[in-house]
């Protein structure tokens, strides 16, 4: 169990810089999820912590001591790979015990630890099988088991669930989270799935193009996204972003007035962020959604279309069943002024 510190971490491959300085401090026992679109540098960041990639600039500290120059094996970490990376020629028992065997742990102790981990992961019946003879979910658990038995200071996960089907993914998501809470090991978990990030993270790092756009608790990020990118990446369906204005202390979208703007903002163009679930039907509202497509999901209904006042498409998520008269229906919607996010059109930074 340990703290992890990233201090202005940069990574260059040749001349191209792919990570542009990420800093954060991770508490002992915290579950941190690194989330972002494909190619944003999540894996690279994780692999630098693991010691599988060199650090071009900055410093990584585990438990207070600098580890930049240490080999992976000297960092006391364990990693779960996307493709599990099990040793195909070894049985489950051997796979899980490999690290301990190398560390010179007595055989009896290895067996005890492997048995314990196997029981925890419901793998006891499969200990003598080779990975080839296991299902995806079981392989995933073996990979977890291999990480657990070594009792490392830090767990690293690189998209460990992306090879599983949707249902198993939800189940394993819970299992991993529960397990981590039970054994309380500091964890870094990489995913491109914002639902995984929201549900598992104590705190998350939202990454985009090699930068940490926002670091915070999932609900904080959801409620107060620091940038336009974080706003659109977190939350499903994603936030509607429209070109609006602030005029005489009021937020306006085209001709429609949306309510008073927060104090201190100068007049001028702004990006308005409206979450689909914050749109409510209101016959008196000037915002009118022209519905193009409706997706009834049962618990709620997604309406896709366009507002009279804006060019950009708009999605509303209404609670419960909402029967429409098909395409072309017009629904007046209201969004409470407090629920509107304002971003700078130039920098994408949050304004309110």
């Amino acid at each position, binding site marked *: 169990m340990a703290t992890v510190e990233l201090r202005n971490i940069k990574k260059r491959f040749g001349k191209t810089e792919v990570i542009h300085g990420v800093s954060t401090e991770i508490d002992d026992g915290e579950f941190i999820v690194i989330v972002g679109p494909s190619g944003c540098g999540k894996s690279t960041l994780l692999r630098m912590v693991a010691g599988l990639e060199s650090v071009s600039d900055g410093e990584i500290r585990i438990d207070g001591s600098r580890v930049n120059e240490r080999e992976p094996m000297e960092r006391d970490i*364990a990693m779960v790979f996307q493709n599990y990376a099990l040793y195909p020629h070894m049985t489950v028992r051997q796979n899980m015990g490999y*690290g301990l065997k*190398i560390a010179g742990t007595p055989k009896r102790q290895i067996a005890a630890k492997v048995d314990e981990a196997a029981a925890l992961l419901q793998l006891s019946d499969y200990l003598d099988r080779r990975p080839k003879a296991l299902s995806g979910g079981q392989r995933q658990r073996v990979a977890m088991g291999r990480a657990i038995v070594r009792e490392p200071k830090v767990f690293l996960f690189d998209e460990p669930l992306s090879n599983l089907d949707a249902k198993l993914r939800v189940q394993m998501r819970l299992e991993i989270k529960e397990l981590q809470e039970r054994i309380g090991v500091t964890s870094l978990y990489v995913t491109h799935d914002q639902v995984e990030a929201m549900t598992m993270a104590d705190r998350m790092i939202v990454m985009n193009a090699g930068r940490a756009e926002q670091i915070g608790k999932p609900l904080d990020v959801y409620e107060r996204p620091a940038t336009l990118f974080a706003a659109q990446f977190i939350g499903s369906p994603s936030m509607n972003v429209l070109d609006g204005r602030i005029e005489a202390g009021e937020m306006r979208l085209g001709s429609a007035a949306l309510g008073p703007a927060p104090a201190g903002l100068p007049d001028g163009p702004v990006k308005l962020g409206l979450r689909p679930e914050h749109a409510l039907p209101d016959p008196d509202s000037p915002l009118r959604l022209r519905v193009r497509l409706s997706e009834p999901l049962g618990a709620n209904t997604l309406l896709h279309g366009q507002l009279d006042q804006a060019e950009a498409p708009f999605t509303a998520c209404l609670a419960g069943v909402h029967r429409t008269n098909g395409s072309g229906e017009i629904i007046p919607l209201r969004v409470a002024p407090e629920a509107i996010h304002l971003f700078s059109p130039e920098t994408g930074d949050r304004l309110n």
Partner: protein
Amino acid sequence: MEKRVTFKGWMLPLLLVAPQVVISAVFFFYPAGQAIWQSLFIPDPFGLSMEYVGLGNFEYLFGNRYYLASFVTTALFSTLVTLTSMIPALFLAVMADRLIKGAGTYRTLLIWPYAVAPAVAGVLWLFMFNTRVGVVAWYLGRLGYDWNHVLNETEAMGLVVVASSWGRISYNFLFFFAALQAVPKSVIEAAAIDGAHFWRRFFTIVLPLISPTTFFLLVVNVVYAFFETFGVIHTITSGGPQQATTILVYKVYADGFVGQDLGSSAAQSVVLLVVVGLLTVLQFRFVERRVHY
């Protein structure tokens, strides 16, 4: 999901295997049958008459000191050739696999020797080690070592082994390199995180994972050492000195074509056939068990 090509009818499959069957029949089964037939006779040197002797040729062979010595020579020679051609190849492949830049050039350079025909390779090595004009022999002389593979049996064996293995290193290298590249990188990384240093990873992870290739090369190289090294031996030592480098194949040639003892030569071919068959079966039976596919 396995995708199979399915053939309708039997004409096409038959047509596809026909070349192999025909070639095997003409160049293997027919000569093999001939050899077995001839091994039962002693023809006169001019081939005008044949005398039926039953298993006489075989009885004579196994009572013959030189023939039995040739067995030992062959065992020694093929073991040495297999080891000398596989171990350096594996080592070079491991090094090439570690390279990120320049692996292509390195690989190409290592493949070149394979393009040299065995007999030419033999001549090459012969020139280098020629007792009178060879460069290497000359330098060895300057260092105080009197190289003479024409008289020294150990040196002769060493030279034919090196000359036979040299070109094979390229061939083996290619296979080992491909096998190493096919080992998933993340498995190696997982082992590194688990605490295994380079050589530990090599012996506990990499070697087991490339064992199908190693096994394949073992079979191929033993067969090579048995049969295809004729050219090298013929050019460098002609089986000498005192038959120290006369492997079974060379003896077939020496007794049959040079000694004109066609019956014995045919019997030797039959023995060789059986030995190689047995070896291959043995290898598959025993070595394959330790191979993880």
